[in-house]
């Protein structure tokens, strides 16, 4: 590491810490969260970037929240999708969508 920032976990010498032993290492990219939105219908909205962003979403069922889509194995349906300008939701079930600055296709 020529220069940068590295922070090791407690009791680990930062000089020889492996990646798994670091809390932060500027050699490794991070997810940069820029937006969070809640949707309650099948809709779309402009995300403000000019490329498809990486994303995560959580689905509400009653009073509980689950990451990702319902269904099992390879039959899960995609409830959220993105392109270079917009986010698309495909269900009226309440969802919370997080968008990252990180491009989805990099």
């Amino acid at each position: 590491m020529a220069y940068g920032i590295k922070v090791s976990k407690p009791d680990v010498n930062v000089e020889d810490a492996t990646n798994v032993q670091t809390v932060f290492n500027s050699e490794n990219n991070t997810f940069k969260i820029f937006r969070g939105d809640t949707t309650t219908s099948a809709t779309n909205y402009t995300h403000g970037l000019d490329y498809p962003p990486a994303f995560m979403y959580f689905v509400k069922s009653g009073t509980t929240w689950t990451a990702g889509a319902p269904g099992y194995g390879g039959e899960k349906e995609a409830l959220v999708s993105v392109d270079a300008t917009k986010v698309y939701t495909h269900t009226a079930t309440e969802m919370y969508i997080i968008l990252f600055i990180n491009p989805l296709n990099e």
Partner: protein
Amino acid sequence: MKISKSGFDVETAANKDLILSTQFDMFKIAKTGSLVLNLPEETKGDGAASSTYTQTYSHGLGYVPLLIPDASSVLTDVITALGGGEDAIVNDAANDAFIMASGPPGTNELATLYATTTQIVLKVVRNWDYAGTFGAHSVTCYYTIFYNKIGETFNLL
């Protein structure tokens, strides 16, 4: 504070060419751990009522936190007559393709991980559209809870 990727001038780098920027939020890990359910052998007939088992962890955050893995109705077991009864790890099973040959679609064991304002819950449901025996086995889910809050609306651009 900003840190650019290698080869990019931090003064002019686009946001996507930054390793870190304090303009944006990050995932902040609150807790990692595992939930384990030790399930009994169980036999029921055609159309019997399902059985539900839960294991919980109280996160103490007072709101619904972001949680991984993505585990919603993950197939974790089939009846013993079809080779079931093995210990299952939800994180592994969540990425397995569903195999129709595993048995009657309505006779299965499915796991879901979800969060509430007070707990995270590993729930396993056994369904009996058709008669069969589920063997005794364990279901384990390795989880990560973040301080980040589900439902918080914001835009940092």
